[in-house]
């Protein structure tokens, strides 16, 4: 297998885990995307430093931590996580990623049970990429109401996924 193919194989296998990792360290979604892209570029350039057969995720996470540290140095201090939070979040994220596929399947099931209006809101925000302000204008609701509704939706989804996994006999 060529080096290209090997990198491809590993990256595609783990890219969702890695993006989730970035997002937990950098909760601003837009910044997280930028950091993920930059990290991936570094991973590609430095792929010759990865030892074949070893833990790719661990190697990639180190690169991401490095990029996130740089990000924290540039962003306002009040929006960066301290080392103790990073350590806690990283540990939980690593553990949580073990049921990745099952959780995604459960999520899909839970999404199918959403009310039409909640599904519309999610689609407007994440498929059509409307800003909250634009959705507020179109739906004649306040920005505040929409933020509250989105966080409610996440709470409901999280609860649903947890119950689904329990029903499946899995660790929630």
């Amino acid at each position, binding site marked *: 297998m060529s080096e290209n193919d090997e990198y491809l194989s590993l990256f595609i296998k783990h890219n969702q885990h890695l993006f989730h990792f970035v997002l937990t360290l950098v909760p601003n979604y*837009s910044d997280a995307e930028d950091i993920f892209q930059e990290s991936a570029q570094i991973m590609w350039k430095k792929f010759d430093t990865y030892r074949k057969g070893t833990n790719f995720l661990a190697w990639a996470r180190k690169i991401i931590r490095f990029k996130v540290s740089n990000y924290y140095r540039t962003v306002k201090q009040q929006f960066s996580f301290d080392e103790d939070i990073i350590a*806690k*979040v990283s540990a939980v*994220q690593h553990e949580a990623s073990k049921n990745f596929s099952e959780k995604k399947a459960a999520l899909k*099931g839970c999404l199918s049970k959403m009310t039409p209006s909640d599904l519309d809101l999610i689609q407007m925000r994440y498929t059509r990429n409307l800003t909250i302000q634009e959705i507020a204008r179109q739906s004649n609701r306040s920005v505040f109401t929409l933020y509250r509704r*989105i966080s409610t939706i996440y709470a*409901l989804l999280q609860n649903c996924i947890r119950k689904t996994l329990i029903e499946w006999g899995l660790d929630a």
Partner: protein
Amino acid sequence: MGVGRMSYSEQRKLYDLITLSVEGTVTPEQFLTLKQMLRGSPEAVKLYVDYMAILSDIRSSNSLIDKESLKLSGMNDPACDSNFWQALADEEKNAPEVEIDKEESRPELIQNVVYTARQEPRISKFNILFFALNAAAVLFLVLFLKFVPLEHGVEVATLTDSMHAKWINGIGSMAKGTRLTTRSDELLLQEGLAELRLDNNTKVVIEGPAGFELLAEDRIDLHYGRIFATVPSEAIGFTINTPTSRIIDLGTEFGVQADVSGDVQLHVIKGKTTLIAGGKSNKVNLEITEGQAKKVSGVDGTVLDIEYNRTKFARKINSAATRIWRGENLDLASIAAGHDGFQDVGSLIGLNPVTGKYTTSVVQKNRNTNGRYNPVADSDFIDGVFVPDGGSGPIQVTSLGHTFACPDTSGIYTHEIAAYRGSVGNQRTTIPPVIFEGQEVANDAVLMLHSNAGITFDLQMIRNSLPQFDLRSFKAAGVPMKEFNPDIYFWVLIDGQIRYEKKIITDERSPISLDIELRPQDRFLTLIVTDGLRATEDERKDPCSSDFFYLIKPELSLTDNPDK
């Protein structure tokens, strides 16, 4: 908040803070509260991580929230009864009312944020198409696409035209409209040209001999041969793989030539691409933009600059008109000679500005104007010709009656309007050689107007003959004859309106350069040369025999309109 289980209100508060952080509208004080919650509660950390997992999954996979696919997802599991969601929502509704900090309860505060939210692009950055706009992210597009090949036998393209195409591998000839699929073996075009439209609306012209494979609607493996791609905006990310490189479109037109030796050439005509080449020690990822060309060595993968050639590749074919377009512009000298603009002007042709007739000889002879605007029966693209003389008022310059306030001239013309290539040599003419920048013009097309003469081209008729193109501009270099004191006024009109004028052109040492934009609504292009102001009235009366004005390489630049 203690180490024990979180209350409903604490959970709601946590989710609110996470939502504001994700959206980029969290205030420093709110973010501090979030950090305190994460620091103080393992459950908060778990909920935070779960929230991000859900967000990541939803945003990375639009199909997850696609209504159609959700209808089909149907689960029989009792945990997902149809009323389950409602039950969950009711559970949430009945939870104790969440006390929101005063800051958060005021809607205006959410809008009045300290941490300014970045404007998100319309297309999700995690969307694979948007990745193609960033040189680094393009890499992921490539990797992802390569990792997920389509199975064989999937229809991905249509053959839209071909010229003298001879296919081997048992295909024989293919009719227009044939659907092409992903295949387990390569397609071999032994000779001729083929134009394909991929299902993502990318158009490619393949010039044989060529061997290639259709991997998907947005990916082609080019083993050898030439291919030119015109990629519309919705198909950004279209990729051509060669044995030694990969070219990814970033919104462009580009040509790739792969030799059997492994050498690859890339010429970018419009927009930009990413070129990935090289081995482990010399891997490169370059952005190649309009007007640039690169060569990848088949030996060691090194990338070199090469001379850009905008007419190297066949970009459009028209089998009905037996025309191959390689990016050439329309030659106005060819049109003035009664041709279609692509046919070479060849030997000298003269067009009489009074009779509108063609002649093969252009010799000096004093003749008077007939005072009229005269049609040219033998050309669809020339609206008319005339001898400009404004002595009696504005003159007609188009068949639709546009007029121009031409200066008073002698009303005499001495030479036909002439079109030829390079030197007139031994042809029957009294036209002196063209001297441009100190050199005699030997090979370029020339349109010569001697005072007093005018010619109007019908741009709409030209457009009608080339429905797949837009006319972008009129370009030419202009220079009077060397020596013998020419004194010329020159105008370029569009629909009777002056777009360019230059008076008192007397010296070939200061040539003019024309690049006049053409708008879709512009109908007529008129070129006029008149005798200038001489020192004495007697000189004005005598017909001047030195007012030669040469337009060198007069062209209408074309752009391919992929939507047409």
